[in-house]
């Protein structure tokens, strides 16, 4: 059983929801990424989503785009992201790490080489934003062969057939995009999410995480009431962007803890 599945199983037994914070590897610099990952865990993260910076992050809003630019300016690359995960694993063998990024850096490394390299570094899952299932059949097969989970996005307007195809291709969990837009925007339709998530979970037979647009602990709690996992990205990246370097870890940890506390108010209360 994968580290991601083990994590969700444990949380289900505890009646708790998964908190999945996102940061961009190499933002503000490569040296601070492992300390930031540890702060996320200290604040109560269950799974870490680590952004692999790309020059043209089409599905991201301005906050994550700026973070990607900062990271690339400092020379971050997919190979160095794997080094970061390897360094993180020297002290943490429990917290799953999911790499989130775009197809081109993966293809530049080689779709045949990347899955094994990622597994050896200690990566648990990958989410390639611009790889819909039908465009990456061979990649998905080699990801599975390496024992990793591949997470796919599911959109509010995905058709029934697509939902079926995406659920088939996914493992670990499904990532439901909470609205039509890019990361970091701010208009959620809670009723729609509350209606869709239970249907998706039942049909797919795997946990469902919700992300894009979750900006504070109250929203996280409302989403957590229906979803299995809450993904928070832009708000955490904003904390890093606006904090002096030496305070970034503490700021991030405090922010994640606030959300953890709110989410845990749901513990035991079945959705």
């Amino acid at each position, binding site marked *: 059983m994968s580290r991601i599945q083990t994590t969700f199983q444990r949380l289900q037994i505890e009646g708790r929801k998964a908190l999945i914070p996102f940061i961009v590897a190499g933002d503000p610099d490569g040296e601070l990424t492992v300390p930031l990952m540890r702060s996320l865990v200290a604040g109560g993260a269950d799974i870490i989503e680590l952004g692999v910076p790309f020059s043209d992050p089409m599905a991201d809003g301005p906050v994550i785009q700026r973070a990607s630019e900062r990271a690339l300016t400092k020379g971050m690359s997919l190979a160095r992201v794997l080094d970061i995960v390897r360094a993180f694993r020297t002290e943490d063998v429990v917290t799953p790490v999911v790499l989130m990024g775009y197809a081109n*850096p993966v293809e530049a490394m080689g779709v045949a080489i990347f899955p094994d390299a990622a597994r050896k570094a200690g990566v648990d899952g990958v989410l390639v934003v611009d790889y819909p299932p039908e465009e990456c059949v061979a990649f998905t097969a080699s990801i599975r062969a390496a024992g990793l989970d591949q997470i796919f996005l599911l*959109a509010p307007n995905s058709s029934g057939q697509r939902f079926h195809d995406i659920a088939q291709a996914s493992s670990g969990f499904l990532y439901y995009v909470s609205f039509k837009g890019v990361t970091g925007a701010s208009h959620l339709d809670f009723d729609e999410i509350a209606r869709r998530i239970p249907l998706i979970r039942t049909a797919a037979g795997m946990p469902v995480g919700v992300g894009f647009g979750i900006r504070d602990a109250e929203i996280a709690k409302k989403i957590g009431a229906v979803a299995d996992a809450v993904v928070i990205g832009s708000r955490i990246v904003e904390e890093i962007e606006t904090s002096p370097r030496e305070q970034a870890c503490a700021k991030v940890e405090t922010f994640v803890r606030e959300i953890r506390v709110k989410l845990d108010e749901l513990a035991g209360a079945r959705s």
Partner: protein
Amino acid sequence: MANVQQQYSYPDARGYFGPYGGVFVAETLIPALEELRGAFETYRNDAAFLAEFENELKHYAGRPSPICHARRLSEKLGGAQILLKREDLNHTGAHKVNNCIGQALLARRMGKPRVIAETGAGQHGVATATVAARHGFECVVYMGTEDMARQAANVYRMKLLGATVVPVASGSRTLKDALNEAMRDWVTNVSNTFYILGTVAGPHPYPMMVRDFQTVIGKECLTQMPEAFGRQPDMVIACVGGGSNAIGIFYPYIPCENVRLVGVEAAGEGIGTGRHSAPLTANAKAGVLHGNRTCLMQDENGQVIETHSISAGLDYPGVGPEHAWLKDSGRAEYVAVTDTEALDAFHALCHFEGIIPALESSHALAQAMKVAPTLPRDRLLLVCLSGRGDKDMHTVAERSGIQF
């Protein structure tokens, strides 16, 4: 729309031209692309739609555009005859309007009241703002701040036409970043918005759809050449950034095996300097950008690198996937000319023919001027003069040390 083609039938159902093309986008855009694909499939063979498209091309854009013999220039070069397909004479001054007219008609039939576009040189932005005004659409155009500085007149033109021009200051602040931003707008406002993409790039069906709307250029040439010059050309030459004017004039000639197809990329300061926009000529690796797999200028880590060209319209790190395929399959050949060579061609056409060409089109012309002297006088080189150069006055003057 494309009965001309017999053996050549690309893209396939999934939008692939050989190994290039496809639909590499976030899931949130898939439903929008499915809707667009469905609408285009319906209307590309709809008689009323095609009649309206043709009518607009004729009475609004001023088509057909003539083919004009560059007599003095050819004489001066002393070799093959240079013929100019005059897309610069279209309404708005470039070939871009052909595609915009088609997509705007599609947008209206799909009930989308708002259109968005990306623009590099500003020609596609102006053409989009133009058709938006004609249909009463709300119009937002994304443009890199670097390009806004280079093409200030076009920015004002778009505003006059009622469009909102949104400056894009991320990345290299050029066409590719404008395209990223337009995609973000589309994914956010997908229910009421039609994205009028300006070139044969992007996710399927854009490379096919933009091509089909632009093939009017080549179809006219197929008829005009025998009428005016007694036969088809020996060579068709067009500039390639994304490659929409080139595919528009090449496509109907693909089955004509005796016609050489030559795409001209921007060599900028020289292929060897790395400061260029010529992924095909420089044999760039395939990569994924803006929704398709194509030849892409990138570093060893798969990051897209900054490109350079004196012409904003060619300043793009990728190229339409069909061009990558035409190169691999050997049906078309691709070369590159430098900023300096393009400028020389620009001045030559002004001087010898009284035509001020766009800097983009000057690249195609420069290639024709290179090969013409090496060929006999009875050979015919058909150059796609994709746009006029009014927008480039500042750039050219600056190069000559002139301030307005």
